[in-house]
């Protein structure tokens, strides 16, 4: 595990979150980003599922990279990603069923998320499992950051709450985590609807880029 502490590896992690952020720099995975980010709990569940699939796929492809023939590498990668996605769907259905009913469709289409195939093909298939894992954690962290920012903004504006229904993911004790805006102002419906998602995503991409490219025109 010594390699993990070497500068390039931590750099990989940082790059995945900021300089190569999948959402606001590479504009990948926007469909689930817009569709699922109506609340923090939905966003967090999709972030965990996508991150788990990305981590599993990156490490497996890296371990198998010497045996996978170049000729069939894309089908092989898609097969590996689909296997991890199916496992994620089964685990979600078994351990967070109410959440499964809400976001199952978007967990199933993780398999088509270009972010994952992109990292597997362009990075994990040429490098060691440790570096591939660090890269996956960074990229997944960047995607999670975007999802959570959108989820928090939309839940706060659309429902006037934050961290509602967290018990769907963390068990009954998490039901008390919900914060409600003082005075109970209710919600701005547009934040929950697709047009609001596009407007907020635009603001998120702009802010993310401005922060990432600080000092550049």
């Amino acid at each position, binding site marked *: 595990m010594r390699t993990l502490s070497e500068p390039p590896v931590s750099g990989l992690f940082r790059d995945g979150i900021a300089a190569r952020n999948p959402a606001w720099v590479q504009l990948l995975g926007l469909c689930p980003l817009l569709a699922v980010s109506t609340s923090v709990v939905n966003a967090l569940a999709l972030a965990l599922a996508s991150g788990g699939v990305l981590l599993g796929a990156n490490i497996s492809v890296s371990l198998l990279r010497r045996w996978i*023939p170049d000729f069939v590498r894309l*089908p092989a990668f898609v097969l*590996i990603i689909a296997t991890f996605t199916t496992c994620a769907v089964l685990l979600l259905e078994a351990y967070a069923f109410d959440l499964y009913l809400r976001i199952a469709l978007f967990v199933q289409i993780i398999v088509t998320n270009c972010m994952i195939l992109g990292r597997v093909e362009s990075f994990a298939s040429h490098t060691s499992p440790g570096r591939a894992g660090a890269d996956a954690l960074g990229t997944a962290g960047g995607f999670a950051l975007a999802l959570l920012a959108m989820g928090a903004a939309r839940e706060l504006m659309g429902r006037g709450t934050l961290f509602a229904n967290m018990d769907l993911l963390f068990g009954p004790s998490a039901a008390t985590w919900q914060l409600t805006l003082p005075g109970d102002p209710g919600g701005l419906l547009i934040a929950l609807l697709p047009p609001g998602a596009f407007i907020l995503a635009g603001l998120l991409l702009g802010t993310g880029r401005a922060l990432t490219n600080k000092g550049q025109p």
Partner: protein
Amino acid sequence: MVKPVSVFVLLVVLCALVLALTHSVTRGRIEQNRARQFVDSVNALIGQQGPLPTMRWRDDLWHLCNGKALIRGQTRGYGGPVRWLIAVDLEPGTPHLRGFQTSAHQETPGIADFLTREDDPWLQQLRGRNSQNLQQVATLTGATITSRAVLAAVADALAHPDLQNVQCEP
């Protein structure tokens, strides 16, 4: 040519093993979850709480033996079959609709969202209708084919041949 193919086949076998393992670990809980959800949805449909009588479907009809019956089936919608579960009150008077629930559909998202919205006014007005006054309901503008499928489903359910032939002995 042989080597890439055999490596790929090995990979397929490996992935299938991983899936089989996950499936065997999660199967029990998934079945429990689905059974619980079914009981919950039937209770929501008939508006009561608690355990249900033993499930006994006969020709897609299940007499709950308290003046209510459930009928399941499917009708053709716009994007494919709309699968439904319908609760019928047998009394008083002629059989009439108690609740309608869509269990699966492939209708246009957005336009057909009323199918899964519990408090949808168009679905609400179907409640209490019998096979006669059901025909006075107008289809929903913009979702003509989907709402016609719902009306056909309710008509189908109310016309089930064994609806009045209650069989509750074990």
